[in-house]
């Protein structure tokens, strides 16, 4: 097996036993800011919202190098570097950092925990100022568009009018797309990775299994659980199902095969304990420690409800879009199959958007964008570099006085 494949097999940086992992970014911090509120798509008005966010690198004098990285379902604001609290690396540390695909020597990287999340941003576990108690299931339904509206408030707060790029994988890609559609003048380029314009029945089905696991957990209590009695079992099962969909047959075979985790004993009821079972249980157990079950319900619903076109013609939806796109998919991703990306590319192109598309052979399933992946990193790095040059030359053209008009 090549070194590249060994690197890939180590998996992503979330919920792994990351021993001796060194980040080029060193220790990084997240901040929490209170921002003016938003009105959600469902009509609920937040007077204020809190967002947890992280910035890496330096904002240029011209403020033209800001990249908003949007996280996926289980991610958070801690995108790169080592967290001082948990000692863990950020979820995209493989690809964000000095000299990496998203080069923090060049770019100012921003990542914020989504509205409805549970890692520092306003979400179902936050205290409702009106009642002094956690919102729990009185929290309004949130959508991908609401998440992006909240991020726009954060950009205002940071004094960034125009983002050089919005990007993200999976749910992060949906947010990146919404940025390009809802704020056409605030995005130079957009990189949706392993994502889609709307979930299919299969994608909704997997999420529904996860949700059912949570709400049928006796501890769920209509969402009003206590710290002592959380529906941890349900959330762990939800995470296990989810995690399987992020892998591929190849990656599971290569990683676990039929390896047994411990020797079988005659007195065991189900004696075989496969490595893959142990891995999934570990994934479930670590996840429940850091994730709020209600948040899982709200965010998966936001994913399922997302529909970029929403029965409108692509040309109408993308009418005002100015961003240049780089759409990336992975051949082995069966949760967000390449066809969904191609459909998106076609809709964008037929609406006259400038789009590049790359479908990589990485055999590691949906997780392919989260793991060490040199081909992916090179393509993403190339795009950002050449687009940054392009943006600079466009700005120069726009600001240069016209000296002499041709006769």
């Amino acid at each position, binding site marked *: 097996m090549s070194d590249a494949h060994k690197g890939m097999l180590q998996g992503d940086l979330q919920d792994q036993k990351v021993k001796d992992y060194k980040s080029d970014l060193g220790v990084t911090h997240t901040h929490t800011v209170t921002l003016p509120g938003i009105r959600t798509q469902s009509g609920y008005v937040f007077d204020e919202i809190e967002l947890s966010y992280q910035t890496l690198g330096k904002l240029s004098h011209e403020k033209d190098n800001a990249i908003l990285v949007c996280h996926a379902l289980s991610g958070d604001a801690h995108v790169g570097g080592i967290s001082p609290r948990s000692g863990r690396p950020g979820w995209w540390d493989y690809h964000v950092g000095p000299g990496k695909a998203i080069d923090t020597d060049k770019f100012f990287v921003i990542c914020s925990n989504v509205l409805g999340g549970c890692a520092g941003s306003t979400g179902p576990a936050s205290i409702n100022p009106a009642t002094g108690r956690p919102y729990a299931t009185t929290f309004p339904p949130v959508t991908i568009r609401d998440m992006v509206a909240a991020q726009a408030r954060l950009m205002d707060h940071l004094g960034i009018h125009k983002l050089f790029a919005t990007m993200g994988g999976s749910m992060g890609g949906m947010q990146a797309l919404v940025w390009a559609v809802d704020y056409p003048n605030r995005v130079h380029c957009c990189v949706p990775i392993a994502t889609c314009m709307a979930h299919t029945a299969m994608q909704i089905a997997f999420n529904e299994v996860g949700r059912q696991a949570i709400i049928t957990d006796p501890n769920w209590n209509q969402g009003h659980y206590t710290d002592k009695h959380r529906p941890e079992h349900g959330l762990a099962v939800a995470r296990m199902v989810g995690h399987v969909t992020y892998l591929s047959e190849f990656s599971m075979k290569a990683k676990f095969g039929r390896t047994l985790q411990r020797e079988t004993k005659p007195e065991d009821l189900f004696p075989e304990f496969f490595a893959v079972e142990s891995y999934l249980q570990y994934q479930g157990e670590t996840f429940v420690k850091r994730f709020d079950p209600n948040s899982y319900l709200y965010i998966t619903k936001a994913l399922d409800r997302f529909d970029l076109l929403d029965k409108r013609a692509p040309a109408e939806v993308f009418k005002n879009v100015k961003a*240049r796109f*780089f759409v990336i998919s992975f051949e082995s991703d069966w949760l967000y199959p390449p066809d969904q990306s191609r459909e998106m590319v*076609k809709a964008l192109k037929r609406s006259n958007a*400038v789009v*590049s*598309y*790359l*479908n990589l052979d990485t055999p590691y399933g949906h997780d392919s964008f989260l793991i060490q992946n040199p081909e992916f990193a090179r*393509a993403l790095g190339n795009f950002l570099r050449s687009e940054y*040059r392009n943006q600079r030359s466009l700005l120069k053209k726009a600001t240069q006085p016209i000296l002499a008009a041709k006769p």
Partner: protein
Amino acid sequence: MYQNLYRQVIDWIPERARVLDLGTGDGEFLEQLVKTRRVSGEGVELNPELVTRCIDRGLAVHQGDVMDGLDQYGDGAFDYVLLLGTFQELKQSEQLVREALRVGRKLIVSYSNFAHVRVRWQMLLSGRSPMTKALPSPWYRTPNIHFFSILDFQGFCEDMRIKEVASAYFNARGLVRWLPNLRAEVALSLLEGAPNGLG
């Protein structure tokens, strides 16, 4: 030979045209077109490694095969569609040309001439599949699936009711002006679809 061919393509394409390059490779030629002709260009390429290199050049590129690439665009999205070097390797020649002339107003296509004198000579004398500079691979390794001549191609255009607006023929010595079907090794053709759709 190919330098001359590429120069001819550049000559045919007016400034600021919208160009789609099918099988764009690492994007070197398309980038040259963008720089010298200030065209707005996009490429289609199957190999992910080459796609990445196109992106490094700042080109918009779509990873996919030629048919999938064409399917991405609406009618008349481009002034020129380029299909350089691979026409004899592609299946569904008719569909491909139709699709290209849906997406582009004009199509520039290059192909190998299978009736070149050396090819005829080799087949006649040796009784084996020919190998020449323009057809360098043995039969079992060649990517070519269609073997046709300049006359064949002209007949194909007639059958398809496509107008060949211009053509240029080349061999190792340069431009071929007379007896192209005998003397040219590669051909370049500028096609235009019927104004009211094809056929």
